[in-house]
């Protein structure tokens, strides 16, 4: 899901970078001092989670945890995700430098969608957790498909979408499990 440099249209990258920096300012302003270690930790956890691989059909996929980031950090997930992506780009070249804004917008939108779903209190908590995990992956994939489409890629993007559908289902189960664990051990993280 980390788009490398040179893959998508440069104009899209420039617009996304400007929008991402604006969003970092908008979502990060007046951050309570207690939230800063949580954001740094979540950013690091997002990175480490990407190192947990599942064997699947002869290959492997890794966790994203954007849904969980949205549930725990809410709108402040965006700066944490941006910092995590900057770190991954510089250290491991997972995602490019010029596409940093695009990747941050995609994944930040996943976390934001998860946060919105999590706030629908009329739904049972377990269902909200499953949906947050699912849309935490699907929303970034939809955005990524749109970016590929506008960059001139043809119908090959449907192949990309089908790969990530499986990842979204797995992520929804993981998200459910994480929320249940937090509810039992440290419920204040969810409230």
């Amino acid at each position, binding site marked *: 899901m980390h788009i490398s440099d*040179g*893959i998508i249209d440069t104009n899209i990258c420039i617009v996304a970078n400007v929008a991402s920096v604006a969003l970092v300012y908008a979502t990060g302003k007046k951050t309570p001092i207690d939230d800063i270690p949580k954001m*740094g*930790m979540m950013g690091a956890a997002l990175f480490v989670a990407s190192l947990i691989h599942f064997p699947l059909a002869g290959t492997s996929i890794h966790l994203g945890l954007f849904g969980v980031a949205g549930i725990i950090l809410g709108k402040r997930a965006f700066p944490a995700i941006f910092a995590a992506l900057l770190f991954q780009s510089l250290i491991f*070249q997972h995602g*490019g430098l010029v596409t940093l804004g695009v990747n941050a917008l995609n994944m930040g939108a996943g976390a934001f969608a998860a946060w919105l779903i999590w706030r629908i209190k009329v739904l049972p908590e377990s269902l909200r957790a499953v949906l947050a995990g699912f849309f935490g992956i699907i929303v970034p994939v939809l955005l990524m498909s749109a970016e590929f489409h506008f960059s001139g890629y043809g119908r090959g993007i449907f192949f990309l979408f089908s790969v990530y559908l499986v990842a979204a289902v797995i992520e929804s189960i993981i998200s459910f499990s*994480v929320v249940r664990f937090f509810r039992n*051990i440290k419920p204040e993280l969810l409230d």
Partner: protein
Amino acid sequence: MKHSFIDKYSNLDSPVHRIDPRVKLVAVFSVIVIIVSEAPGAVFPFIFYGAIIALLIFISRIPLSYIMKRCLIAAPFILLAALLYPVSSIISQGYQSFGLSNPEVKAGLTILLKGFMALILLILLTSTEKFHNLLLGLRKLKMPKLLGVISALMYRYVFIIHDEMLRTTRARDSRTPGRLTISRLKVYGNQSAMIFLRSLERSQIIYNSMLSRGFDGNFPGMQSLALRGKDVIAATVFVLLVLTVRLTNSNINCYSFN
């Protein structure tokens, strides 16, 4: 955790290593923008871009084998994207149209070249500068303070969390070996939550102790940067060289269309 791969060759001494991190960041970002703005189907200018980057690798004294190894990490993402063009062509026109003369195949090749050139530049950037200096450079380039603090904390936490992950992975695999099932996925979820909880508690203790020692978002001990004129000149020459190739190629394309 073994993390010597991070800034592994940043201690070498070369003209590239000695350049101010701010100058390096701006130059690499500019050059990547110039290279990735090449039109789909352009292949010829990449010979020149490749030559310029090869010269940079030679000057920086970073081993080529190391760069190749690092390239392998991101290679699948670039290959997948490069394949999407030919795949789209096969879906819409069938196998008959498949060949090097096909514009979709050429566009895929351009994506591949752009992706790898940008990747090598990024590897060079991070291999010739210590990570905390890059962060300092970004801070001096007016990166939002919150991002700077989060990134700096992440750099410190990530090793702790990774060690935690290795420990819990060993415990998980010894208790629930076997294939991926739904019940095993729950174990993965519990593992993620456990890693998060343990690390969160530790990070809060660390951060509180930092605050009690007067931490205000700036990391004391970080060396200040001094911008040198020759760094700016060297970076400008590098950017202008790449820009010249880019503009020359645009003109050639312009004439060939006319």
